[in-house]
């Protein structure tokens, strides 16, 4: 759709464009063209060769992996217009952003908003340079969608806390350096007894156990804390403010899961292109199976409407300032549509689309099955669709529960 795809040339800042081009020419290794791996944050530890390392360091030193973050903490300090130019030129060059993960997507923006100066100076620069991997310590066995029920407890010991408890669904916990966690500091108040703190994953007493998923991957862990010492300087905000900070972070997560972000990149080839590859075509080049063709068009129209909605949300939240409550709508829609797309893909490919391993399947076919299965989680984590529906009904529509 032209309204989305049409590149809009910036009329000013040609100098900056030149700078970017020169930088890319100098630093982006051509052999890495198009090799960016959007799944890196969940699939496993980054396996960096020398070229990848050099590229990450080059981007990190400019702060261009986090282009809009303030320069004083290692970000790029770019304007929106400059960021667009950067993205355009990177796209032209086939370059990709080597700096990502939960530090960039979730923790960084939250710390920039709620952290102290010391905390920002300590934690943001390594994120900007892509040196430190963060993981999220939110869910617990009995506090999934119902986060307020969490039991992990941080006992005040003067200059530090001692943390005991168990987290689960810790994304990339086995590869992470640090964890941003919500923990209970007061058992007498469900919501106000929660605090937001930062825990070193290599601190004594932290144990991590990967969980095998139906997709065969193990991107999540159970994480056990046994008498883990956490210095007080690692408390973000005030004691008891964890619920507020934690929810704010979830809004960032939601926006990322919704599909406007990562999901769209994970989707791979265009659905109609895929169909043209796997299905019979008529003499006119159309997909011969009219029913499947109709279903593909049905999906693509709705996907278009979803992308337009994501774009509109960005514009409106810009106008209103900050992340809007429409993030719940986006999360709900984006995950649903991405799942539908996976199911359609399987139907298009028939049994060829259900390969698990071994001969007879291409890498992209095998990847498609894993993505289909992995994608079933997107309507569960980051606040399940049911939770998003509750949020929409109650907070947006004002439909209150039985009084």
């Amino acid at each position: 759709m032209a309204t989305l795809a049409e590149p809009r040339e910036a009329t000013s800042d040609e100098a900056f464009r030149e700078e970017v081009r020169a930088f890319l020419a100098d630093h982006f290794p051509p052999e890495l063209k198009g090799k960016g791996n959007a799944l890196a944050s969940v699939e496993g530890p980054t396996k960096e060769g020398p070229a990848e390392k050099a590229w990450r360091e080059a981007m990190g030193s400019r702060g261009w992996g986090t282009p809009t973050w303030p320069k004083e903490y290692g970000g790029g300090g770019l304007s929106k217009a400059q960021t667009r130019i950067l993205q355009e030129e990177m796209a032209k060059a086939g370059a990709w952003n080597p700096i990502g993960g939960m530090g960039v997507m979730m923790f960084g923006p939250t710390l920039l908003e709620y952290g102290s100066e010391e905390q920002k100076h300590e934690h943001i620069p390594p994120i900007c340079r892509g040196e430190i991997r963060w993981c999220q310590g939110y869910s617990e066995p009995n506090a999934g969608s119902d986060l307020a029920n969490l039991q992990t407890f941080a006992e005040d010991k003067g200059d530090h806390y001692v943390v005991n408890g168990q987290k689960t669904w810790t994304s990339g916990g086995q590869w992470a350096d640090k964890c941003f966690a919500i923990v209970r500091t007061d058992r007498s108040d469900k919501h106000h007894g929660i605090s937001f703190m930062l825990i070193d994953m290599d601190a004594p007493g932290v144990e991590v156990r990967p969980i095998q998923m139906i997709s065969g991957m193990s991107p999540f862990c159970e994480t056990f804390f046994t008498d883990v010492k956490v210095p007080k300087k690692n408390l973000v905000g005030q004691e008891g403010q964890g619920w507020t900070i934690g929810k704010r972070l979830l809004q960032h997560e939601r926006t990322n899961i919704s599909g406007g972000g990562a999901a769209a990149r994970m989707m791979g080839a265009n659905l109609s292109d895929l169909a043209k590859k796997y299905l019979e075509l008529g003499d006119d080049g159309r997909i011969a199976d009219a029913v499947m063709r109709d279903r593909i068009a049905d999906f693509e129209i709705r996907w278009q409407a979803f992308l337009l909605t994501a774009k509109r949300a960005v514009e409106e939240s810009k106008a209103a300032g900050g992340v809007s409550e429409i993030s719940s709508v986006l999360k709900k829609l984006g995950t649903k549509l991405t799942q539908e797309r996976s199911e359609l893909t399987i139907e298009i490919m028939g049994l060829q689309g259900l390969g698990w391993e071994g001969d007879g399947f291409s890498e992209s076919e095998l990847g498609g099955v894993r993505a289909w299965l992995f994608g079933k989680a997107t309507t569960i984590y980051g606040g399940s669709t049911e939770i998003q529906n509750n949020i929409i009904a109650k907070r947006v529509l004002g439909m209150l529960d039985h009084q």
Partner: protein
Amino acid sequence: MAILNEEQEMLRDMAREWATNESPVAAFRKVRNEKPAEGYSTDAFATMAQMGWTGIVIPEEFGGSDFGWMSAGLVVEELGKTLTASPLVATTLAASVIVLGGSDEQKSMWLPKLASGEVVGTLAIDEGPRHGGKVTATVSSGKLTGTKAFVHEAHGATLFVVAAADGLYLVEKGEGVTMSDRKLTDQRSHAEVTFDGAAAERLADGGDDLLDKVLDRARILTSAEMLGMANQVFDVTLDYLKQRVQFNQVLASFQALQHRMADLFADLAMMRSAVESGLEALDGGYGIPRAACVAKAEANRALHAMSREGIQLHGGIGMTDEYDVGFYLKRARVLEASWGSSTYLKDRFANLAGY
């Protein structure tokens, strides 16, 4: 909601205020019961014309305001909320054909009158009950012959934009033009119009795809009306759920209904994005054909679901003529079938995308 400029915001607020105060659903009910010949209140339409709404897509030199399609869509959306019976959509579309394909003389002749509301125009394209069939009307020696099915707002129109096999023509009401009522469930003006050697003037300057261009506009502007309708049904239904008590609780407190409303809210968000993007495409002049498919297909989908759920969630009273919600259901199905059912639009979208 799209980011509007000041002019657009004023226009929308004016339309909203007028629709709410001067043209609530009760006004449509009155039209339905009193059955004026034109199928709408000519007084109300005269007021609309005075407010400049008939000239929104007409260039200033021909008496319009040239505010553009987003502006036209905003007004149509507001009028859709209260089901205002008027030929505003029909006459706007007729004017747009002349803007796109009329000669200088045709523009000078008709656009000022359409802008002022003196002339009401409409499209006469389809020849069967489903959009997209063959056009068989023919013209010879400036005389057009053919029959057009279910022409919207036919009763009030004095100028018809008629599709013939070799292009679009302007035909004035008069000799050789007869019509037969086709009263549909939405109780608006529809008629079968027969042209029997009626004097016709070709719109020659719009290119070979003039008809396609007009239909894209029809799809997008109709989807704006549907957007207003769907949002109104949603709002009215939400209000009802918050008031109505069953089992000692307001209905809004039942989780099964909360989640259904959340689904509908998400549907409506997609519908709004699609419709606004269609209007933006018209104003921007790019990607119109696909944007029109997306706008109308999403409008069909969301309004279909919303109009059905509106009745169901109102329960028994929603089934009564005394309540307004049934009117939206009836009008919804007429608009869904107009200018392309969802199946038709998906086929067109796939053609445009090359698969």
